[in-house]
């Protein structure tokens, strides 16, 4: 049964995306319920896949019935099933959320928007599920292309940001493609499991080294790792709310997933650790990403732009977890893929809701938001605390494992960077919380009469379709923290390659 689910997870959103124009042509307002309804199926199937993987172990699904090195197969192990659940869950939430945002910002473009939305989700899930390096490239391009287009329809400056993203993203994708080419030339195979068998005797070959280098750089570009992050802030910031809420949590995380997959499954961990010094370099880049992202975020007055730089820093977290190359660090990295996806989704959803309701994203204009939008702000606060690393929210636990990993690897500076970053996050988020919850410190409008201050502030909460995903995400932040032990013991510890 689970095998069928594996196929469904790609096919359903794909076919459904073809129907969106048809439905939209008939009745435009049916697009939204259609997309939401369709996205429930991947969520159910991915949960069922995860369940199957947990009980019976990894399985694969041969497409068109051809045996692996010749045909393409989907591989579902703990890691991919886990990321699949994250992707399908967050995309469903963002889809639910998108209703008002799309009605408000893009009334003309509802139909192509939802089509591309589904295609983006298809692409992301394809990347995660496939067991073939070239097939992965194809899905990477599907997600990237829909992402470019969705970003380009954002606010002022979006087309320029999208074009930069296209150029740099294509460099990344092409480097990845080149990496595949080099691997293919040295081994003759494109299947991940097959490659993993063939590669070990070839580890001294220059071709393999170059392939590995291109993979790493290409994926670092896609993941937005410093200093290849230059496309990221503008692109994520100018995109429409519903789009940035989908891509900010997922795109970089999926790229990080591919990085883990290639470095630890296709290549043996000992290659990535002993033969190439790539992890030292990556680790330091990640440190710089954390520091740079933090400093840039501090300089922003726009809430969304601030979050975007936080995304840059968060990529650094995951890459540090990968670069320490030990069991604990990698556990932290995989856990952080999930935690960060949920936290970022929640923060971007909240930002979108605030923009929708108040029309501003400037931090200092957010005063009295706790009265106007109590639930939204409560969700924001919970997630902010999680970003700072306050237990029992989930951010604490991934940070804990990441720090344990760096200690085990003896990388003190990396640990220090992680700790500094939580302090920077504290400054960033408490600044917002102060503005939103407390009386404004400079009474800017107090001069025109004292009574305006005491004016009763009416509750003006975000619409229901926005609020539900926000609240679910915030609850998720707490629950994932509390159950992180369970998640690690039942899923993540099997997702970490056994050779550690």
């Amino acid at each position, binding site marked *: 049964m689970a095998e069928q689910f594996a196929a469904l997870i790609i096919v359903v959103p794909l076919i459904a995306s073809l129907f969106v124009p048809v439905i939209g042509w008939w009745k435009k307002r049916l697009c939204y319920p259609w997309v939401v309804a369709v996205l429930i199926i991947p969520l159910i199937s991915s949960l069922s896949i995860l369940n199957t993987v947990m009980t019976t172990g990894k399985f694969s699904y041969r497409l068109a019935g051809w045996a692996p090195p010749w045909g393409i197969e989907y591989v579902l192990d703990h890691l991919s099933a886990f990321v699949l659940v994250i992707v399908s869950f967050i995309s469903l939430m963002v889809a639910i959320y998108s209703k008002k945002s799309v009605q408000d910002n893009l009334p003309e473009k509802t139909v192509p928007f939802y089509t591309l939305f589904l295609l983006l989700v298809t692409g992301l899930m394809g990347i995660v599920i496939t067991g073939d390096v*070239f097939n992965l490239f194809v899905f990477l391009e599907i997600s990237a*292309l829909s992402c470019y*287009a969705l970003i*380009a329809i954002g606010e002022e400056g979006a*087309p320029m940001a*999208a074009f930069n993203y296209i150029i740099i993203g294509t*460099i990344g994708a*092409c480097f990845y493609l*080149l990496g595949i080419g080099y691997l293919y030339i040295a081994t003759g195979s494109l299947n991940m499991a097959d490659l993993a068998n063939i590669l070990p005797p070839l580890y001294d070959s220059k071709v393999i080294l170059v392939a590995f280098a291109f993979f790493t750089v290409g994926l670092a570009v896609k993941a937005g790792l410093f200093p290849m992050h230059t496309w990221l802030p503008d692109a994520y910031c100018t995109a429409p709310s519903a789009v940035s809420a989908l891509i900010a949590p997922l795109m970089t995380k999926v790229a990080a997933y591919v990085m883990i997959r290639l470095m630890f499954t296709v290549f043996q961990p000992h290659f990535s650790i002993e033969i190439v010094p790539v992890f030292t370099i990556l680790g330091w880049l990640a440190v710089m990403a954390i520091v740079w992202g933090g400093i840039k975020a501090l300089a922003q007055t726009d809430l969304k732009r601030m979050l975007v730089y936080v995304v840059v820093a968060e990529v650094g977290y995951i890459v540090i977890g990968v670069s320490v190359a030990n069991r604990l660090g990698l556990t932290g990295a995989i856990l952080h893929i999930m935690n960060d996806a949920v936290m970022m989704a929640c923060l971007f959803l909240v930002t979108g809701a605030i923009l929708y309701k108040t029309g501003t994203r400037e931090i200092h204009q957010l005063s009295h938001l706790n009265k106007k939008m109590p639930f939204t702000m409560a969700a924001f606060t919970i997630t902010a605390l999680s970003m700072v690393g306050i237990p029992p929210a989930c951010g604490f636990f991934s940070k804990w494992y990441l720090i344990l990993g760096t200690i085990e690897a003896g990388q003190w500076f990396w640990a220090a960077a992680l700790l500094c970053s939580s302090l920077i996050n504290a400054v960033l988020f408490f600044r917002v919380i102060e503005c939103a919850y407390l009386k404004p410190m400079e009474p800017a409008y107090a001069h025109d009469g004292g009574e305006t201050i005491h004016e009763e502030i009416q509750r003006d909460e975000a619409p229901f379709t926005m609020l539900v995903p926000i609240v679910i995400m915030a609850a998720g932040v707490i629950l994932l923290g509390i159950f992180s032990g369970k998640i690690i013991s039942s899923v993540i510890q099997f997702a970490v390659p056994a050779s550690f």
Partner: protein
Amino acid sequence: MLDYVISKYNFWIYIILMMIGLYAMIGKKNLVKKLIGMNIFQSAIILFYVSTGVKAGATVPILSGHGHGHGHEVIEVAKYINPLPHVLMLTAIVVSIATTGVAIATLILIYRKYNTLEEDEILMIRKETGV
């Protein structure tokens, strides 16, 4: 040395092409030139792939003359070039075209807004309008 250079001449060609493309993508100010650079870059990769599938003295992988009646004949692998890179590149070409298409569409959006496709001019306009 010369033998070495000649024996791998396909690599040198594609490496040069790729460097040209990459330079244009990063270094050029004009957005269309960047796009052209992107196409050169992608073409270089396509050339590389296709050249890996070549076998000296082999022909295109179409089994002409092997109709239904001749199915029993032994097929010599060395006589036909490797079909897989071709397949991959068909996909890559399509991807490249699609990317170019999307890129051009954004260029149209940019041109509509700023009336220019020079990066520095656009940055200047954006600075002036205070975005």
